[in-house]
């Protein structure tokens, strides 16, 4: 029972990161109907930028801020150079283009920072807390990650539901034609979706980098986790992404704890396959995932 509680608690932080990455996928999907498979590539790249800043200045917070800014810039660049022009291509084209971006970003990162895994520092301690004389599996850093996730989700919720920008974004996602007629500049809202997703992804990258070492490929597995969470959540739903992101993190933590870390990808795959077989539209969505 003790171990179960430990694995369960440890899973929360992992789940928070998966939730953020799933959020980034959902934000892009809502704005431009593209699953951004380059998402983890962007997160990885901006984490390297953050790490470089931390190495130069010694300030973890400054690294985070610069990484977020880099995430916004990168999202904007990818939107304008690749995804906006690609809308003219067929539907396969957009998917393939995101993989092209992923490959290019990973190669570029390997060129600049090398392929060896790097350690990312933490702002607070990353060793187990002692409660009533027993070391439990949750660390101050885990709590930090969870709190950061909650704050970020709150900010996002306020931006998307309480501001004019959020209203315009939701309008252009819901019905681009009507939004355009009502004076919303839909293409700007698409760009905003990519920028915000890039920033959220950057936070997720910086938060997860200390727990999973940072290398050009080390986030690949999180693409599978985040996609699984986003799809189960309905791919369209922010609430769904957060809920099932945390859920996926908890489940994978239990799997890792009770069997082996290398099982996580397989379990995520099974989870995704079951979901796509029985309820492909996800839990919080009414759009169709199936075509025939």
């Amino acid at each position, binding site marked *: 029972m003790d171990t179960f509680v430990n694995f369960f608690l440890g899973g929360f932080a992992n789940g928070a990161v998966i939730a953020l990455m799933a959020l980034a996928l959902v934000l892009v*999907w809502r704005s431009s109907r*593209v*699953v951004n*498979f380059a998402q983890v590539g962007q997160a990885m790249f901006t984490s390297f930028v953050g790490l470089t800043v931390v190495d130069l200045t010694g300030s973890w917070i400054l690294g985070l801020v610069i990484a977020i800014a880099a995430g916004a810039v990168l999202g904007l660049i990818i939107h304008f150079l*690749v995804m906006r*022009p*690609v809308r003219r*291509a*067929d*539907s*396969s*084209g*957009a*998917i*393939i*283009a995101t*993989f*092209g*971006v*992923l*490959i*290019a*970003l*990973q*190669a*570029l990162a*390997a*060129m600049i920072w*090398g*392929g060896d895994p790097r350690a990312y520092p933490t702002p607070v301690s990353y060793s187990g807390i002692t409660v009533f004389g027993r070391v439990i599996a949750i660390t101050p850093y885990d709590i930090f990650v969870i709190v950061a996730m909650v704050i970020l989700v709150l900010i996002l919720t306020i931006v998307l539901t309480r501001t004019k920008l959020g209203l315009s974004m939701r309008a252009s996602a819901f019905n681009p034609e009507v939004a355009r007629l009502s004076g919303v500049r839909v293409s700007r809202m698409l760009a905003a979706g990519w920028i915000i997703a890039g920033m959220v992804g950057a936070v997720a990258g910086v938060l997860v980098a200390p727990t999973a070492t940072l290398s*050009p*490929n080390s986030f*690949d*597995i999180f*693409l*599978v986790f985040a*996609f*699984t969470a986003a*799809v189960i959540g309905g791919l369209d739903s922010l609430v769904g992404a957060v809920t099932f992101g945390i859920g996926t993190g908890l489940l994978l933590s239990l799997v890792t704890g009770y069997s*082996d870390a*290398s*099982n996580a*990808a*397989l379990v*995520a*795959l*099974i989870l*995704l*396959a079951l979901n*796509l*077989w029985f309820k*492909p539209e996800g839990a919080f969505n009414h759009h*169709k*995932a*199936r*075509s*025939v």
Partner: protein
Amino acid sequence: MRDLMLRAPGSRFAIHAAVTVAIWAVLTWLNGSIEPQLSYYLALAAMYATAMFGMTILVGLSGQVSLGNGALMAVGGYVFALTSMKWSTVPIIGVPWNAVWSMVFAGLGGVIAGVLIGALGARLRGPYLAGLTLGIAVGIPTIVNRFPALLGGDEGLKLIVPYPEGGYPEAISQQEAAEQVPADDAFLDEFLVEELPADSATSAPADSGDLLTPEEAVSGVESGDLLTPEEAVSGVPTDAPTDAATDTALVVDVPADGVDAAAAVGSDFVLQQWQASVAIAVACIVGFLAINLVSGRQGRVWQAVRDDPVAAAVVGIAPAGAKVSAFVVSSLFAALAGAVLAQILTFVGAGAFGLGLSLSLLVGVVLGGRMSLAGAAIGAVLLVWLPELVDTVSGDRGWPDQITNNAPNLLYGLLVVVVVLLAPGGIMGAVSGGWARVRPQRARETR
């Protein structure tokens, strides 16, 4: 006239057969007349082409972007490895077990995996399918860690392939070479295949390189392998029993062919050339199957379902069935390619079949032209040649390794984006588009 020829029953089949034989003959001649290291690249290109013919059908014609084909290659590779090692003494239908049987079983494994994945994936829209197959590409290779005793875990399995007589010493040196390759998790897993020639080049020449005149090599390949195209086709399950005797000769020994052939195989055996001849034969068989499927009714069915499933259903095509069949065909090809890759590396391991392999298949087929089988072949050559080109260029300019090793992937990624944006038909599309402007009438006909 051309029209009449194409309309006569069976004539398309005959033309394809003739073209396939011609291509096979040219490649075999090429394989015999080049350096062992170039044969190695030829083998790789043929292996990529085999897998990418399936990608053309799946991604191009049936419009299902899949990243799972690297994992399906793993299925083929592991089935080949296991059956060729564990059952090497089991005769089937009176014929001793050999690489051909293992290929057959690898293909069967691919078909089964294709049915399973297709049944799930064919119902999904583009991004969902891409995500699911991404999970397959990442998740399936981790299965080897579940069964370390059987599948060798992280270490992988070393193959003992029944090479022709006299081939063993070098086969072993090749294995040692494979072991020396660091099990790095680099991106497009070409590290495994990239670094091998260099290693084997240091060990191989003493045994074989000096003995080879092109003539000897050609005669060795031709008489030793006994691959007339008809027999090559018999490597496909349907015909296997009738031609089994010659198939055995193909990989085990050539006693019936007299002293000359045996001597040629015995003394002048070059592993890379033998691997290339296997890869070329498989690629030609698979290419022949693919071109007949694509240019016939099934090809139109796949495209109809891709362009408009509802309209296709209205004219009596079952969209789901068409999508699953594209999956099954591409899995079969992928599994055969995986079996060939296993023979080229003389090794199977999760690292060799990871996400990088799946991505490189997608890159190759997109760059070459995802609507055409010729595009797949061009893409296959590109996958092998581009890193070499970059290596040469960087060698001249004195770039550091960190740049050189990653430049091919950066190029791949950027080129994929450029191709999707500017030339969705890839190289083949650009070429045939240019051709259409020159000769509009002809182009319409052959399309």
